[in-house]
């Protein structure tokens, strides 16, 4: 298996390379550039032209690409023109926030979805099951950001249960317990909002798995041996159904990263998704390309991770 994993990782290199070329060219095609935004009568257009030349914006695209990719290969993704900082340092800072949110949301999604899925499957066709199924359908059907907006409005603005901007209160000292609690407090509203809508897939998967498992021979055998139903659930059905869910982890996380664009826009949470939208608007090429590369890389990594977990938990599935 290690051979395959290494091979998969090696395949990522050309994939990422093509992605870099694609996104680089696309980003350069966008009208305007980071300096267009500086237009005021007080800024001197000649100086802006000078800066453009200094930044290499008038070089042929392949020269720009070559310069960029050779630096990127050494981990230097260039300078953000609007933030006046190395791209790596901005993204690093934002990634931390997005990952924290993603991790919290994933844990919450699993905490909500697994019990609901198991209950729905176990008490198949009862009122409880139907309610859970309806919930999962509605959470699939509702336009997510409308619900996010309503949540922000109701729980953030009106009831004021949660903070509505930023990631931490400035007056607290980093490193203290209160500081971390406050950070977590800022995660709560976006995390819960995401989790409430993000459970559909797992609930439905788990539910069908368990309903299917009930008719499986091994369950019948276990029952016929006189093992109580409760034990059959915890020992056999639940475990067997849960393993593939574990394997979804990789995909769930990458899905969440994609969703971060919406979540962070609505909750004004300064993570990578928000950074992406801001960078698009300010034409911060270097940040855009680096972010797309990062998301692409994470997606590849996520699917690899899922495959590995899957092959570990289910020996029938081989990856190659």
């Amino acid at each position: 298996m290690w051979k395959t994993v290494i091979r998969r990782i090696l395949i990522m290199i050309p994939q990422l390379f093509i992605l870099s070329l694609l996104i680089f060219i696309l980003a350069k095609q966008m009208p305007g550039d980071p300096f267009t935004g500086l237009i005021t009568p007080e800024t001197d257009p000649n100086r802006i032209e000078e800066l453009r030349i200094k930044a290499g914006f008038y070089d042929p695209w392949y020269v720009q690409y070559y310069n960029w990719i050779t630096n990127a290969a050494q981990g230097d993704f260039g300078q953000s023109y609007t933030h006046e900082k190395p791209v790596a340092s901005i993204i690093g800072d934002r990634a931390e926030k997005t990952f924290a949110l993603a991790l919290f949301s994933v844990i919450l999604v699993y905490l909500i979805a697994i019990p609901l899925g198991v209950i729905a499957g176990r008490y198949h066709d009862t009122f409880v099951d139907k309610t859970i199924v309806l919930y999962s359908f509605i959470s699939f059907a509702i336009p997510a950001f409308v619900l996010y907006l309503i949540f922000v409005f109701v729980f953030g603005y009106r009831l004021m249960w949660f903070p509505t901007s930023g990631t931490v209160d400035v007056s607290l000292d980093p490193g203290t317990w209160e500081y971390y609690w406050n950070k977590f407090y800022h995660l709560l509203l976006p995390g819960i909002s995401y989790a409430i809508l993000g459970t559909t897939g797992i609930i439905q998967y788990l539910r069908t798995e368990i309903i299917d498992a009930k008719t499986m021979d091994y369950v019948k055998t276990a029952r016929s041996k006189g093992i109580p139903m409760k034990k059959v659930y915890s020992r056999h059905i639940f475990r067997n159904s849960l393993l593939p869910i574990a394997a979804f982890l990789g995909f769930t996380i990458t899905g969440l990263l994609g969703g971060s664009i919406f979540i962070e826009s609505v909750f004004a949470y300064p993570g990578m998704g928000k950074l992406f939208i801001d960078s698009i608007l300010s034409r911060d090429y270097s940040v855009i390309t680096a972010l797309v590369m990062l998301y692409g890389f994470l997606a590849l990594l996520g699917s690899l991770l899922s495959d590995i977990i899957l092959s570990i938990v289910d020996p029938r599935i081989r990856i190659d």
Partner: protein
Amino acid sequence: MANKNKKTVENFKSESSPPTGIQVVLREFKKDKLAMFSFLGIIALMVAVFVIASWIIDKEAVMKINLIERFTEPGVSGYILGADEAGRDMFGQLIIGAKNSLLIAIAITILANVVGITLGIIMGYYGGFIDNFFMRIIDFFITLPTLMIIIVVVTIVPKYGITELIFIIAAFQWMSTARLVRSKALSEARRDYISASKTMGTSDFAIMFKGLLPNLSSLLIVEVTLNFAGNVGIETGLSFLGFGLPPSTPSLGTLISYAMNPIILSSKWWIWLPASILILVLMLGINYVGQALRRSADAKQRLG
């Protein structure tokens, strides 16, 4: 269960149908009243939207700015669903928006699925180099951060209207269909009836699209239905982020995105809520229909 099903069909001599045909779907819908209701509801809704939008509503009149009617509430002075800040009739905008959104979603679904299905079948049928070649491409595309790239492309496209939006989204939607169809076609193409067709001189084209394709149809119906739902979502999502259609071309997405202004969200509900509910209802309906279709495609889960 599959056998049982076969026997019932055999007893049912007067009429015959393939094992996963329309009849099974119909039977499934008869069993699941909710799905039936959803199906009829969606059809009725779509017809109503298209009829009203095309023949009854005058787009020009709806989009006419009338400052006196600024934020008129529903039911007042003949505005069924009130008016927006420029005094434009919200009911008219809702219908036109729904029409635009549905059109976009349908067009994307058709475009992406035609490409995806064709390519998937070709890959699955021929296998080998063709399969490998396209698989590499699909593998590459499928791991792309699609939403981000769509946003980048949207900012590049100079004249950006409904057609452009359709093509941009469709360009990133065919891959998953192609991959699904390919995997099914791959196993289906190894079956003997395909070999038999080959030995009997049927052309590859006919084998693929007359022989193989109908055998994937139940799977495809499910895929297309759920794709459709997804595509409604993508359009609204893009509009919400501000990369969708301009307000002069209302869509459900643009109407919903008015809710970003907290004043409109809290006190001018008639602007965004009807569109949200319309989407909710539409998606729920599609989901119920999709579930029923999925059950009818999978003998194990059938209710009837």
